[in-house]
C-alpha cells in the first residue's frame, strides 16, 4: 500500500466507525478536541485499525503519544513499513 492509500483507508475506517464527516478528517484534527472521541472510542479505534491493517498495535508504547489524526497516519505508516521490512 502507498502512504496515500494507507491514509485514505484510515480516514474511511475511522469515519465509518465513529460516524465522522470525511471533510473533518484532516491531519491536524485533534482526536479528543476536534473529532470528539473519548477513551472508549480509543479502545475501539485500536480494534478497527488492527482489523483494517491486519496488525497488532494494542501494546505499542508509541500509541500513547498520539494526539492528532496526522499522528495516527504517521503511526500506521511506520508500523506498515516496519512490517514490510521484517
Amino acid at each position, binding site marked *: 500500500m502507498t502512504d496515500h492509500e494507507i491514509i485514505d483507508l484510515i480516514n474511511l475506517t475511522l469515519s465509518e466507525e*465513529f*460516524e465522522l464527516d470525511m471533510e473533518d478528517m484532516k491531519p491536524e484534527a485533534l482526536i479528543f478536541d476536534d473529532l470528539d472521541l*473519548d477513551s*472508549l472510542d480509543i*479502545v*475501539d479505534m485500536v*480494534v478497527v485499525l488492527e482489523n483494517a491493517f491486519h496488525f*497488532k498495535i*494494542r501494546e505499542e508504547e508509541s500509541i500513547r503519544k498520539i494526539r492528532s489524526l496526522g499522528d495516527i497516519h504517521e503511526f500506521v505508516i511506520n508500523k506498515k513499513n516496519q512490517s514490510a521490512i521484517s
Partner: protein
Amino acid sequence: MKRVVITGMGAVSPYGRGVAPLLGSLIEGKSGIARADELAEIQGLRPRVAGLVPGIDPREIPRKYRRSMSNMSIFAVLACSEALHQADLGTEECAGGQMGIAIGSTTGSIQATQEFFENFLSTGGLEQMKSTVFFKIMNHSCAANISKFLGISGRILSPSAACSTSCQALGYGYEMIAFGRQQYMLCGGADEFHALTPGAFDVLNAASFKFNEQPQRTPRPFDRDRDGVVCSEGSGIILLESLDSARKRGVPILGEIIGFSTVSDPKSIANPDADFIELCMREALNDAGLEPQQIDYINAHATGTVQGDLAESAAIFKLFGNNTPVSSFKGHLGHTLAASGALELCAVVGMLERQCLIPTLNLDNVDVSCNHIQHVQLLRTKKLQTAIKNNFALGGVNSSLVIRSYQND
C-alpha cells in the same frame, strides 16, 4: 405517606412510537402481530410470528449515547423522552437528584451476547472486543443508558423479573415516592426481540405456532383455541410523581397509583398457581384499602397459555366472582415481556380517561375452563374509576398494581 400520581407516559410498541397509536390501535382492535419468517433459521423453533417495533431510526440518538445501547435501550430512552415531555419535565428536574429510575428488562441484550460469543469463540480471545459490548449485555443496561441520555441523578434501580419486570418497577417507584425518597420516578421496562425469546417459551411448549399462517389470530388469551405466547418487543414508561409536586407544578394528572403487591410463588418455577395469584391481587387491594367489589376493571396478565390463563381466571373468580369485567391486551400486542406491565398500564390509563372497556382480541370462544369470569369481548363504554393490573412471571414472580382516576380529594 405521600400520594403518587401519573403525570407522563411513553410507549414504543408493535404499533410504533407513542402512547396515542398504542391506545388507538387497541381501541380499533388492530393486531400488532406479523409473520416473522426469519425464525425459520433456528432449528427446532416452531413459532413464525412476532410483534416487532416498526419505524424507529436509532440515529436520532447521538452516537456517544447510542454506542452503549442495544434496541431495548433505544426503545426505552424514546419512551422516557415522551413521558418527560408529557409531564413537562426537562433537564433541570432530571439533574436535580429528585428524579429516579426504576426500569428493567428480562435480560441484557441477547443479540449483543450472541455477537460477543460468536467473536470470542471464533477468535479464542478478547482482542476484537469493542469497548461498549458489555454495556449492552449487562442486565441494567436500559436504566444505565437512560441515566446518561437524560442526565438523571437520583436513585437507579433495574428490577429483572421477566414478565413482572415493569409492574414491579412501577410498584417500587410508587413506594419510593410514597416514602418521600424521590419526587419523580421514571418507571417501566423494555425488551428487544430475539429468536431465543420465543425459543425459551417453545422449549416449555408455551409458544404459539398453530397460527403461523394467520399471525393476527394469535395469541388468544382465554380462548379455547389458545396455544401459547407470542413474543413482542417495545418499551412502556410511566412517570410517577408525588401528588404534592404535581399540584404545585399545575400539570395534568392522568391517574393515581393506590396499591401495589408483589409476591413469590414458591410452588413451581414454571407453572403459575391460582392461590398465589389471588394472594397477590388481595394484597394489592389491601394496600389500596379497597374491597374487591370496589374494582371496576381487571387488566389480566393472560398471555394465551393454557395453564396461565386458567390459573389467573380461577384466582380472579375466587376474589372478584363474575361481577368485574376482565380483559387482556396480549391478544393485540403479544407479550412485550419486561415492557408489558407499563405498556398495558398506559392503555388502562387511557381507558380510565375515555371511560371505555377494551376487549380481549382473539377471544372468540371462551374456554370452558376460563368462562366463570366476566370477559370483555366487545368495545363498550363503562363508568370506570378503579382498575387492577396483573403481571406474572416465569420463576413465580407475581405482581399487581391498583390504579384509579385522579380525584381531587
